[in-house]
């Protein structure tokens, strides 16, 4: 099923998507991890939405990052071709050629700050954050220090309570109203959807950084439409008593005819557990509307939308913004990817590039100068990924025979391996999925290379070179870097509230029934001891070969 979906995604956009005049960013290629206990029918009745958001107060009173302002800039020369073959680029699925436009975005005079002015403002706001921390965040700071100092004892920090916030409801209401003059609510004629959209918008604006980026959105006179949408393949399911859903959470496209960004949120948010609506969705909206929608709005009229969607930083910028907003709201990350990024930012993109086909075709500014070379280089890495995933699966499965041996020859009860077998089965699926994904990455790159070697490809290369040289791209990268640095800083300054899932996921987390189930550490010892004992046996009685 998953393979068929994948194949359909790679093939369909070229034909079906050709009618769609927008750039889409999402790709529902990722396997759903964690088997749902039960798939609920799509007709589950909508629960009553909370009357007010109940999330914790945000961390700071001021934005961590000041959005990078833009000045009027020249449009990129449009492509001459009208029948672009987007099947080669799943990231650009369903794109028609852009309509030529020479219209630069209208920018209010007060929005044309220079970069250095922006940095100065950012610096000033950073000091406000520091002052706030000193006054209200001393407990958290102390915990942070004690956590560092107490590492030798292996003590874990569970973070502190969310810090107090200077809550200016009237100012936020004003900002909401001004933002709603630029953002149309696509409520499908359903009052409950309209109400939900306003609530999530209001909740997002509790974040100071979201406020700052919303002001930027307004100052640039950008427009967008937001609404809930049924996402193909998204299913509600119940896990541990919480109603969740699989599939894409949100997506953003650029509607070139209307000159606005279209932001769609998964309608299952309205039917899933209220905690997802409250804790997850505000950050998703920030990611989509203030991350993607804002830059689409700036770049779309300049014929840069497709280049934007091809640039590898466009997702990182939006993600960084969403993570910061999420953290400001409750000192937790709903998205584990934030931790993946924070542990080693420079490794993040290269990691996901080989895990998700659409990312395999995204390019850095330098690579946009020679995309063919970049793709050919990645193709070699993708081929290696396939063989590596196959090797990993083979190695992984070698454990099964060892478990069987201990059950059959060493009298260990099979039930004691239940936990290990369950983990192994899960990992087995992961490896199989990785092989499929690596093969898809390979196919995607092969198609991309084929396209670039065509006549249209040559024009597209010329387009990408113009895009890479456009000043807006550098501004977006600059903003992304600022967001990444701010994300690191806020997590350092304000220790996170550890989610139960993280505690459970700790490598030293206690097993649910340690007396009955063998852990990996125990099993390793059993295996190693048995090998030692085996060497003492007569050669013809030995089980293991050295």
């Amino acid at each position, binding site marked *: 099923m998953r393979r068929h979906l994948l194949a359909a995604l790679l093939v369909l956009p070229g034909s079906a998507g050709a009618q769609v005049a927008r750039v889409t960013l999402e790709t529902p290629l990722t396997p759903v991890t*964690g088997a749902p206990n039960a798939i609920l029918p799509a007709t589950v009745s909508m629960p009553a939405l909370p009357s007010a958001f109940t999330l914790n107060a945000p961390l700071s009173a001021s934005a961590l990052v000041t959005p990078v302002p833009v000045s009027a800039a020249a449009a990129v020369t449009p492509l001459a071709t009208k029948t672009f073959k987007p099947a080669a680029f799943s990231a650009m699925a369903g794109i028609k050629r852009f309509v030529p436009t020479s219209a630069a975005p209208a920018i209010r005079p007060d929005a044309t700050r220079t970069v250095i002015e922006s940095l100065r403002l950012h610096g000033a706001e950073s000091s406000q954050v520091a002052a706030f921390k000193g006054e209200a965040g001393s407990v958290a700071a102390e915990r942070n220090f004690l956590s560092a100092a107490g590492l030798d004892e292996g003590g874990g920090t569970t973070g502190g309570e969310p810090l107090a916030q200077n809550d200016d409801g009237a100012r936020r209401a004003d900002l909401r109203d001004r933002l709603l003059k630029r953002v149309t609510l696509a409520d499908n004629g359903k009052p409950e959807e309209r109400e939900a959209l306003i609530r999530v918008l209001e909740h997002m604006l509790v974040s100071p950084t979201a406020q700052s980026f919303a002001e930027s959105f307004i100052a640039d006179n950008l427009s967008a439409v937001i609404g809930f949408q049924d996402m193909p393949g998204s299913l509600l399911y119940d896990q541990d008593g919480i109603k969740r859903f699989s599939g894409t959470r949100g997506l953003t496209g650029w509607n070139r005819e209307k000159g606005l960004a279209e932001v769609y949120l998964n309608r299952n948010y309205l039917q899933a557990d209220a905690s997802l609506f409250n804790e997850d969705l505000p950050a998703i909206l920030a990611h989509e509307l203030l991350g993607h929608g804002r830059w689409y709005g700036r770049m779309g009229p300049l014929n840069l939308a497709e280049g934007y969607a091809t640039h590898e930083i466009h997702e990182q910028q939006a993600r960084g913004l969403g993570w910061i907003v999420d953290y400001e709201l409750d000192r937790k990350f709903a998205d584990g990817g934030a931790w993946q990024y924070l*542990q*080693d930012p420079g490794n993040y993109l290269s990691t996901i590039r080989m895990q998700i086909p659409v990312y395999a075709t995204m390019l850095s500014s330098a690579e946009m100068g020679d995309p063919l070379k970049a793709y050919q280089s990645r193709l070699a890495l993708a081929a290696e990924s396939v063989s590596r995933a196959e090797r990993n699966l083979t190695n992984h499965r070698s454990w099964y025979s060892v478990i069987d041996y201990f059950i059959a020859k060493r009298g260990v009860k099979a039930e004691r391996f239940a936990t290990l077998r369950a983990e192994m089965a899960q990992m087995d699926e992961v490896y199989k999925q990785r092989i499929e994904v690596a093969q898809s990455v390979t196919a995607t790159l092969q198609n991309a290379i084929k396209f670039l070697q065509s006549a249209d490809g040559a024009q597209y290369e010329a387009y990408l070179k113009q895009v890479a040289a456009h000043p807006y791209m550098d501004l977006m990268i600059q903003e992304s870097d600022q967001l990444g640095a701010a994300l690191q800083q806020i*997590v*350092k300054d304000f220790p996170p509230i550890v989610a139960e899932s993280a505690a459970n996921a700790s490598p030293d987390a206690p097993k649910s029934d340690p007396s009955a189930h063998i852990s990996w550490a125990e099993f390793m010892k059993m295996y190693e001891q048995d090998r030692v004992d085996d060497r003492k046996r007569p050669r013809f009685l030995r089980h293991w070969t050295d």
Partner: protein
Amino acid sequence: MSRACRAFPTVLALFGAFSFLALSAPAAAKEAVKMPIPAQAVAALVKFSPPKGWSPRDYSNAAGADPVASFENGEDRIVARAFGAPGSDYKTPADFLAGPAALTMGMAPTVAGKVVVAGQTLTLYKRGFPINLGDPHVASPPKPMMGVEKFCVLPLAKGRFVAFSYARSSPIPDLEKTGEKAWESFLNSIKPAGGKKKKKT
């Protein structure tokens, strides 16, 4: 953050810097125009023998201030990350140990023992990290699968320090401990790149 990961063949050429052999001059001269090559920047602080047969890669964080040299083999990854330079994400070892790179999704790492590196006895830490998260547009699983990382921090002169780590991107250990053995050999091979050793504080 520097996002540039150089073309693979170039990286292969550059990683000669880690094998105590002279770096190929033409390749280095071509790349090192403005910024120091991350692998060379790490090698300027510490010398070590790269795991044999593992795939090398280098890049940097903090706009080039924090160079990284990594080696991968299957699910295993050994990394040397240098910090403490101006503009670094982590100014001190304590800063690093309290920071997100050392946490298990917000929880402090646990102590996994002691290890001698370059003549210094260091604390070996252990932490978990989420794996197999998939498409960022899709919700993370509520209980993500976790890999395991062991790491230690080697203080050097002038406020610099290097975090060495061995990560396995699977909750399931390697039956033959290939990565563990490579990690031990790697740690044993580490030496400061010239200069005097700093006393343990």
